[in-house]
């Protein structure tokens, strides 16, 4: 199934309904472009075809895990959530979301682990583990085509602001802030690679550089290593706030999980 017409249609549909951006530096709604549009046709073709998209192997693994009983309570995700196609539709499009018990936002990966601990009495899956990536990819896949609406909850406002500050702040030996490339210089090139707008529309995604599925946190850590900054640990509040800000910055764009990126 080709996703390009679906993406175009979805963008057209929501262009009119979107709220005013929170921050002046955000790219205006009409100019928001997915990383997909910066890729060569060959790589786009890899994403378009579900039987050629290596990320779909992870989604299939996730589908099996969804039904697998686990933990001391010997329950499967499916036991509470039933058919994911219905129950998980739209979920990834509003993550990271506020968790009332913790009093802070959590990513989809963290939500999966919170469910495991609270409702299955199972051990949390390690970050970037094959199983966690597979489950997250499977859940996010159920929102493919749904416009991102993260950040609507007013309780998230202070955390979105922190994420914005992290996006703007210069850091590392190269003294660069995310905004320097991804707000100011997108569609130029860094060496042979196109600089994109850094819209996280397709995570977890199959990155050709990794030759595997990976999360947004892995990509952010790689970026920080790239500017010679000490990357935040997986699951660090800073990474969650950054992901939260990035997703609010991408509001209106359709989810593409599992995307393929160079």
């Amino acid at each position: 199934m080709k996703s390009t017409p679906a993406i175009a249609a979805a963008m057209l549909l929501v262009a009119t309904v979107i709220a005013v951006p929170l921050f002046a530096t955000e790219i205006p709604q009409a100019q928001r472009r997915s990383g997909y549009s910066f890729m060569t046709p060959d790589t786009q073709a890899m994403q378009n075809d579900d039987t050629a998209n290596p990320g779909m192997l992870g989604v299939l693994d996730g589908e099996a895990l969804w039904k697998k009983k686990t933990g001391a309570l010997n329950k499967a995700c499916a036991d509470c959530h039933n058919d994911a196609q219905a129950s998980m539709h739209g979920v990834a499009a509003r993550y990271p979301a506020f968790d009332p018990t913790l009093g802070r936002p959590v990513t989809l990966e963290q939500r999966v682990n919170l469910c495991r601990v609270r409702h299955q009495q199972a051990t949390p899956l390690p970050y970037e583990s094959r199983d966690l990536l597979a489950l997250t990819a499977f859940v996010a896949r159920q929102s493919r085509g749904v416009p991102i609406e993260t950040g609507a909850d007013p309780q998230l406002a202070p955390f979105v602001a922190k994420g914005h500050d992290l996006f703007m702040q210069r850091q590392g030996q190269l003294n660069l802030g995310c905004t320097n490339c991804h707000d100011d210089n997108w569609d130029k090139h860094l060496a042979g690679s196109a600089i994109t707008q850094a819209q996280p529309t397709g995570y977890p995604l199959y990155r050709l550089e990794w030759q595997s599925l990976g999360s947004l946190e892995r990509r952010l850590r790689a970026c920080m290593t790239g500017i010679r900054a000490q990357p935040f640990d997986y699951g660090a509040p800073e990474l969650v706030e950054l992901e939260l800000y990035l997703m609010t910055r991408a509001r209106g764009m359709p989810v593409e999980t599992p995307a393929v990126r160079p």
Partner: protein
Amino acid sequence: MREPDDSTRRQFLGLAGGVVAFGVVTLRPAEATPAMLASAIRNVVGAAVVKTGKVKLDIPPLVENGNTVPMTVSVTSPMTSNDYVKSIHVFNEKNPQPNVGNFYLGPRAGRAQVSTRIRLADSQKIVAIAQLSDGSFWQTSIDVVVTLAACTDEVI
């Protein structure tokens, strides 16, 4: 100052002697040489003459990422039971190993075309050689530019 151990001294001389015999030491990782490429081709075609033509290699001239490069190789052939492509062999010039893939077809293929995804370590030449049912060999080659990713990634 202590005299270096006899055994280590002998080892050092042995190594140095070896290096001197071959010339300058380079610290690049193992690489296919033109000789390896030629010998890999010879393994397939033997002493036969390889004609240029009939084969087409479809690889983006500038690849998005050298780790996963889409490649389609096709051969013009009627693919009938008396005139078909038996096999297609793809080679490279600069990966540590000269072979990329061997594909075995036959008259039932209908179309002599195979697609896959390959790894290319550096900008280099790719060679594809097809063997037809009449025993003849045909080839083509293209040059591909491969760049490294702009930012270094951590080892996960």
